[in-house]
């Protein structure tokens, strides 16, 4: 994982300090795990206006339940699990359409200009790169929410399938199977941008 809330030893020190009333340690914990929580919320919840409230609720829940954490897993995995379940509860409660793709993605897909049409001066190469990055980000967002989440957790947060299984509550085999389909889907979607470069 990129954000090393990682080692059990560090986890224990942080938890002890927070339980002793050190609020700065909790602020540090939030900073360390914010990327993971943001990744989960942003992939699963499309409505941006709810992201902040949801993140706050997750961290309040973590704070209240920290005394019950028994170090059976990494602290970040446990927080990820709370974030995932909170998002699912939120979606279940609001009954949002989680399959809806963001509008910006539609605009991107209907843009008449493709990356391969561009000439290759250094400045334009940089622009192409930025566009590819943006296209990749949008394509991941446009994947079915769970697929997008699995791609983010595995390839960006660099979690193992076992850790993802722990966060999502799915069997490890199911995680692998969904991850395979997610990669294949993303590969096909991104092919239009990359095919001329290969």
């Amino acid at each position, binding site marked *: 994982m990129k954000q090393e809330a990682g080692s059990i030893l560090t986890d224990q020190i942080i938890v002890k300090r927070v339980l002793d009333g050190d*609020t700065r340690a909790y602020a540090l914990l939030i900073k360390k795990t914010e990327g993971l929580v943001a990744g989960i919320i942003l992939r699963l919840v499309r409505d941006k206006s709810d992201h902040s409230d949801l993140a706050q609720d997750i961290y309040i829940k973590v704070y209240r339940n920290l005394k019950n954490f028994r170090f059976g897993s990494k602290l970040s995995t446990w927080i990820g699990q709370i974030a995932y379940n909170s998002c699912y509860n939120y979606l279940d409660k609001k009954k949002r359409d989680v399959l809806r793709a963001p509008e910006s993605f539609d605009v991107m897909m209907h843009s008449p200009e493709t990356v391969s049409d561009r000439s290759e001066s250094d400045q334009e190469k940089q622009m192409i790169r930025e566009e590819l990055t943006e296209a990749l980000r949008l394509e991941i967002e446009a994947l079915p929410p769970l697929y997008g989440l699995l791609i983010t957790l595995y390839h960006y947060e660099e979690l193992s399938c076992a850790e993802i299984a722990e966060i999502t509550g799915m069997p490890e085999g199911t995680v692998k199977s969904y991850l395979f389909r997610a990669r294949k889907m993303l590969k096909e979607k991104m092919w239009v941008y990359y095919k001329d470069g290969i």
Partner: protein
Amino acid sequence: MKNLHWSEEELQQYVTGEMTPDDLQEYHLQHCQHCRAMVGYYGMLFSEIRNLPGDTFEEDISGLVMDRIAAGSVSHIKARIWEGAFLALICVAAGVLIWFVGSTFASLAGVFTSAVRDMWLPAMLGILAWTVPQMYTEYKKKLEMMTSDAAPATRLHHGGLI
């Protein structure tokens, strides 16, 4: 050669390092432009994902959460103060009742009642002298801590997210 193309699963597992190809697969990869291109494409795709800018919130989540925790602690302390005040009120009421009973039925209550009547005020003062400084110290400690700087839910069926 065409029939020996690597499957999607093999391509993905090879790029993520979850599979070691056997000799036949290795030979095919060396001589098949299509499979090499696919391996290269997957590799590039995964590398691009790793290099994406990190997910962040627009707001300062850490600050907002710490404010909420501080607000929760202050309200908890306020609740403790109200509890203390309520307890003191009950003690006063009990004292008044004892005094009333003692003065009205002095002849029946006798020595015991008068002893209680004489004791209630010192007892009340003792309780207040013990609890108020304690509550104040705790309040100051928490306030100082908050201003110094800035369980898992039930597992649910997840099929709906796909």
